[in-house]
């Protein structure tokens, strides 16, 4: 059962990932990216990380992708033809293919500890309680720094997109 759902989600996420980079229209591309993100969120649930999955759907697939679509609608882009493939782009495809093959082969070749199933079963691993407890004790300083980073991001975005007189 778990294997079936994993394979289903893997196939759908790889298909929609390919569609992200193959679609001509940026809007379709971003919508396929949302599908990929939702698939990855479902995989997070299977990996006993329900809190991260919820965050992924709300913040990533919700807020960030809405920002993407908003900018796309705002700019009203004319579709430009990407033209003939340059040597650089062909090299890019080759590099990506080599990267995929080499990493996949390496991962299949190297036996990780406990090759069948996962190493440890930790009850309540990704619960809100466990994540929150860790976040507000062990990782409190990074958490505060992240809030400063978000503030800097907001200010930066406002200053950048302000129309100068």
């Amino acid at each position, binding site marked *: 059962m778990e294997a079936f759902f994993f394979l289903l989600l893997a196939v759908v*996420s790889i298909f929609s990932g390919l569609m992200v980079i193959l679609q001509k229209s940026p809007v379709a591309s971003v919508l396929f990216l949302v599908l990929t993100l939702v698939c990855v969120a479902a995989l997070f649930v299977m990996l006993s990380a329900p809190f991260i999955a919820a965050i992924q759907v709300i913040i990533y697939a919700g807020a960030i992708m809405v920002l993407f679509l908003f900018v796309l609608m705002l700019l009203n882009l004319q579709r*430009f033809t990407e033209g003939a493939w340059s040597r650089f782009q062909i090299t890019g495809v080759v*590099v990506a293919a080599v990267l995929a093959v080499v*990493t996949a082969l390496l*991962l299949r070749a190297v036996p990780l500890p406990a090759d069948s199933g996962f*190493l*440890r079963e930790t009850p309540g691993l990704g619960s809100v309680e466990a994540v929150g407890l860790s976040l507000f004790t*062990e990782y409190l300083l990074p958490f505060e720094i992240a809030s400063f980073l978000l503030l800097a*991001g907001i200010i930066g*975005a406002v200053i950048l997109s302000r129309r100068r007189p």
Partner: protein
Amino acid sequence: MIISLNHYLVLAALLFSIGVAGVLTRRNAIIIFASIELMMNAVNLAFVAFARHWGDVGGQIFVFFIIAVAAAEVAVGLAIIVVLFRHRETVNIDKVNLLKW
């Protein structure tokens, strides 16, 4: 068939490679941005898979921070694209090569 860490890592590697291919081949700045998000998600998947494998919540905390940083990055990056479009009337990165050697 038992699903183990390796399966998730191979899936993450494939998604990451798709993102790399997108960044290197597409010329539309917004699609390049979407490909970067795809790569980031592949890394998140690997992090959560390792967290599950070792039974340590630290990997999930990292994903939390990556999502926060991605939010800031997208806000600033899209603002840059908007400004770029306002100045150049294009988001084709081949037309934007002022700083390229």
